[in-house]
């Protein structure tokens, strides 16, 4: 039920990812003052955007779950948040590498985007202990959805608040990514975002299919073994 369209999406993901890599390495020019290290931007920023989008999407799916009572939406929300947390870890690591290379420090506190992302990441890390310390599966799904909704709404609030704390000393424009990029860099960046989004959807569908299959398998196995009992 989740595997519908998995094949075309994964093919599209591979194609755009290859195109994105080709553009990053052969088309986009080296940054004038950061040089080659600036290329990490093409993987770091799309990952961050897709991870935040995944968190918010997880919240929307959770709303769908609570409204319809269909538990498969909770599974969708869980897998979206799960993948976003993995991406989030990669964002923090690549961000630290980039910061070290271009600013000379592994971590910079006066950059609101970095700080907000860390806070959001820390909050979502609590999703696992919360979800897996509730045994009853129906209640687990409901509580996880409530968390996903509250945390999903928290993402934009937190970004606004952290920006507000800084904006007096460090004025900056909202569209800092992509807003002031030259044309060839911007094209590369957009292709990278599309590739990352497709990769995320592919992984999401794959994980859902695998989870669904293992649940089916377990059910069939118990069905098969039931009559053999004396």
């Amino acid at each position, binding site marked *: 039920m989740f595997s519908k369209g998995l094949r075309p999406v994964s093919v599209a993901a591979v194609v755009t990812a290859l195109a994105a890599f080709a553009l990053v390495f052969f088309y986009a020019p080296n940054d004038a003052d950061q040089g080659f290290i600036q290329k990490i931007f093409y993987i770091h920023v799309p990952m961050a955007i897709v991870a935040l989008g995944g968190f918010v999407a997880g919240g929307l799916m959770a709303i769908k779950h*609570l409204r319809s009572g269909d538990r498969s939406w909770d599974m969708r929300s869980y897998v979206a948040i799960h993948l976003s947390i993995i991406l989030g870890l990669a964002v923090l690591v690549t961000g630290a590498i980039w910061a070290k290379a271009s600013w000379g420090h592994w971590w910079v506190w006066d950059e609101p985007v970095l700080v907000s992302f860390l*806070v*959001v990441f*820390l*909050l979502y*890390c*609590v999703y696992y*202990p*919360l979800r897996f*310390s*509730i*045994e009853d599966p129906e*209640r687990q799904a*409901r*509580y996880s*959805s*409530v*968390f996903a*909704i*509250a*945390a999903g*709404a*928290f993402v934009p*609030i*937190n970004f*606004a*608040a*952290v920006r*507000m*704390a800084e904006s*007096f000393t460090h004025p900056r424009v909202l569209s800092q990514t992509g807003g002031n990029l030259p044309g060839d860099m911007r094209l590369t960046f957009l292709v990278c975002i599309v590739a990352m989004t497709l990769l995320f959807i592919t992984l999401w569908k794959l994980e859902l299919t695998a989870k669904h299959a293992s649940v089916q398998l377990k059910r069939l196995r118990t069905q098969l073994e039931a009559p053999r009992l004396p």
Partner: protein
Amino acid sequence: MIRTAAAVLRKDLRIEWRTKEAVPAMALFTVTVYVLFHFGLDRDSLDGELASGVLWVTLLLAAVIGVTRLFAAEREQGGLDAFLLAPVDRTALFVAKAAALFVYLVALEIVAVPAFAVLLLGPDFFDSLPELLIILVLADIGLAAVGALVSALAAETRARELIVPLLLLPLVVPLLIGAASATEPLFRAGGQPEDLGRYLTLLGGYDLIFLLISLAVFDFLLDD
């Protein structure tokens, strides 16, 4: 709904008045943390951003204690089942719990803020007391809304003493930003408020959004 909420709130406040479980523990905790900060920072008096940061972080950590205890009676003595059996609006329970937490926080601050002024604060901030009161009230509303939701979320988990701080503290980061930044100029020598409107808007907006979210989703936590 208001009547149900008021009844539950009365019950909670009466239990708290008789057992004296949460608020004295929170107050004791804040004073202990002030002592820890005194030795940890090796300073006799604080001012400016250090003072405002110490005060707000201490208050938020103390709030964790209150949030952990908020659903204790319901959980341990089966009050939740009784409430669910009653033909009343379930949102009333959230309103009552948030109101109870708000009262606890106000009671805590009546002790904790003067204690802070006596023990750690350098400059005299008596002139800017009205501004500080507004900041405290707005922060308490937000804390009460988020705290009641977090408390209900964590109530059914096995490791609730762990989940509450892990969940609550990241969620209140915007609150801390607003409150600490608004308080900081008040705690400087001869402190005058600065940028107060901006941070009060942040606090008010946070309160409003989280009250609405909590009201919208709270029912689903009780739906058994």
